[in-house]
């Protein structure tokens, strides 16, 4: 048998092509699944042999995803899960340690209590995905993913003047099928005796599919499963785009129809090296989180003429938010849901040792600067602690153990997602601007963007309301339940 293998090897060398199967036989049958895995990758036909195992992205790829956080990894996973061998996916992430990524710094909560039906449906889909994550994201040969999903529920509190908003939202949520119950002041007092219900007249408590999870495990599971299915991650940065407008024709900008101009290739510059690789791709998906607005400017979105719908920039910018981790031994314990005060502060239990996480979105005028991720502990003392102590009297005695800061990819227009293609470029898709509720929508967004690429339209949930067109016409889709 060894002799046969050697013959095949010599034959292959004669014809100047070493097929991987022949190599497998010649070396004595080392790994019988390797050629099948290479076929499934989809990239081995396009990458020259000397670049096959390198860190450089290939010259051609089907879908290039900019940004490898929860959104990018989810889109990569869904694309590969739908078409194992037919789509080559490359994810470009410049921060391999994810030190500033919104995904890993987030509190990782999921809720159904929105006021826009599309948001509610996306969260419900994601909750179903997370509950069945072992079937979807288990890589053969490793441990099943454990997302530590705590199904504890959100509790939104409202004072007398904001009561009607909660009522209206409740009707929308019930119509969409979310399991939420309204509680009066007396019911709140009876159910949560540790809470001070002085000026609170109504509470909205989520019964199912609401709670918190570990966002780092979610990202890791998506990334590992996407890599196992054949997507490739590259530690590099996107620094430019090349546009082809041979077929461009003048259009009516109010119709938002693509005019034939397409993105041809993306200039990807390697980290710590002057090398720049030009990657030709059929589709480019922008999921760069807080830095999406900046990257859009490289494409001319925001600096172009109005006739080509390029005058409005992507309205996404980073906003810094603080999260504080404190210990309160006499606190509410197991019963503590993710409590949201009428003032905007939120608090939730973390673990079983009497520890809690809290935070608050500051007012528009007090936004901290986004140059670095340093924490301002005075913000806790002045803005959060008084509200917490007023709402939960036992939390007058607590000790802040640590804190961190992360960026919201804040949509300045209406704090809702931007999902869809850009009107000027037919093959440039965006999934950004989640403004603090990205993690809970990442599985749904992954599914929807993969459908948009593979089938041309959204099939699971119709999120055309969240397209980029509303940014151009400046018609916000306001979300009333923003934390």
């Amino acid at each position, binding site marked *: *048998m060894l002799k046969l293998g050697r013959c095949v090897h010599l034959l292959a060398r004669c014809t100047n092509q070493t097929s991987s199967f022949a190599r497998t036989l010649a070396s004595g049958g080392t*790994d019988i699944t390797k050629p099948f895995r290479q076929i499934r990758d989809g990239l081995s036909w396009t990458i020259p042999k000397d670049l096959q195992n390198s860190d450089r992205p290939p010259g051609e790829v089907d879908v290039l995803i900019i940004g490898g956080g929860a959104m990018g990894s989810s889109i990569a996973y869904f694309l590969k899960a739908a078409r194992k061998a037919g789509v080559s996916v490359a994810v470009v992430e410049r921060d391999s340690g994810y030190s500033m990524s919104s995904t890993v710094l987030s509190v990782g909560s999921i809720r159904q209590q929105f006021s826009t039906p599309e948001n509610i449906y996306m969260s419900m889909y994601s909750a179903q995905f997370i509950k069945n994550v072992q079937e979807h994201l288990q890589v053969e040969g490793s441990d099943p993913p*454990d997302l530590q*999903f*705590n*199904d504890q529920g959100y509790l939104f509190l409202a004072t007398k003047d904001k009561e009607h908003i909660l009522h209206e939202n409740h009707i929308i949520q019930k119509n969409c099928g979310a*399991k939420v119950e309204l509680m009066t002041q007396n019911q709140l007092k009876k159910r949560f005796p540790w809470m001070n219900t002085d000026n609170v007249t109504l509470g909205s408590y989520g019964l199912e599919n609401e709670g918190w999870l570990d966002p780092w495990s979610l990202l890791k599971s998506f990334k590992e499963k996407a890599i196992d299915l054949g997507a490739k991650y590259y530690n590099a940065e996107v620094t430019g785009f090349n546009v082809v407008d041979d077929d461009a024709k003048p259009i009516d900008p109010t119709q938002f129809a693509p005019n034939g101009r397409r993105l041809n290739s993306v200039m990807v510059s390697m980290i710590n090296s002057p090398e720049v690789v030009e990657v030709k791709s059929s589709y480019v998906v922008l999921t760069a989180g807080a830095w999406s607005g900046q990257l859009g400017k490289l494409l001319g979105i925001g600096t172009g003429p109005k006739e080509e719908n390029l005058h409005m920039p992507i309205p996404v910018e980073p906003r810094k938010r603080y999260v504080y981790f404190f210990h309160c031994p006499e606190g509410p314990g*197991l019963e503590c849901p993710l409590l949201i005060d009428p003032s905007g502060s939120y608090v939730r239990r973390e673990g*079983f040792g009497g520890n809690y996480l809290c935070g608050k979105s500051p007012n528009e005028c007090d936004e901290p600067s986004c140059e670095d991720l340093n924490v301002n502990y005075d913000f806790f003392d002045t803005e959060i602690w008084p509200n917490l102590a007023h709402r939960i009297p036992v939390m007058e005695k607590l000790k802040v153990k640590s804190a961190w800061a992360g960026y919201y990819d804040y949509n300045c227009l209406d704090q809702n997602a931007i999902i869809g293609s850009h009107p000027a470029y037919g093959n440039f898709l965006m999934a950004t601007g989640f403004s603090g509720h990205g993690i809970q929508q990442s599985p749904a967004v992954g599914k929807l963007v993969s459908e948009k690429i593979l089938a041309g339209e959204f099939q699971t949930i119709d999120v055309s309301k969240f397209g980029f067109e509303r940014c151009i016409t400046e018609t916000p889709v306001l979300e009333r339940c923003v934390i």
Partner: protein
Amino acid sequence: MNLMMQQGRLFVQRTLCKTCGMQMARRCLVTPQTAQVLPWRLNNIQRGYHNIRLETISEVWQQFKKEFKYLKRASANRPLDPKDLNLGLEIGTAIFLIKANARVHFSNGRWYGRQQKGEKKVRLPAEEAVGYTVNAIDASGTLIDQNGFRDVMKLTGVKYLNIEGCPHIDDTCLAHLVHIRDSLTHLNINKCPSVTENGVATLHKLRKLERLNMSDLPKVRYSKLIASMLEDAVPRLRVNIISNLVDTEENRAKENFTEEDLGQTRTESV
């Protein structure tokens, strides 16, 4: 190399090759002066067959066993038959549970379902039970998972639920229990291998719960801590790992489950 000429002891280890994962034997010759490791392939591999055929057969058999297990689980959690639901939600769900090898107790005082372990599957005599509600469910050792459980949670009025030893009951199922929070008083989740502490922590939503059995949960860390936190949160709750008599009450309820059984436990708790 003639090993017979060198003095020393010869060891043979069966290991896996680091590059290809195939089985190989290592001949280690330990002499007083040196320790030599000579990689050598097993007889079969040397001939070029690489044990592929044997491994393929065993892989195929493993795959077959996995598929069969999945099939059994899927058949236990089929959607409810519309024909059974004609007689009412209670009867339809009871038929589903009995097909999945559980026992159901109606408010007419009778248990329906398998009487002993290993008995052939029985049918529910639907005419007897029309108009009564399901009071107690003993689904220990069944293959119910979150899809089937969701159908079971549409019942209202279930007071006693026993899901001891079910391999597919996990945190999402315990979170689904919130739908019967108004009526559930006795819950038994002993020995469920997929339940973690996050699932047990959602049991505080069951405000009427009086007895909880949660011993032998392999994935739950700090179970006594969580049990004491649950006892603080839920009024009138006693958990078997930190209170006495909960296990004997459970055995009594599992056998008989009469209203008197429940009444007795309620007076004892005060």
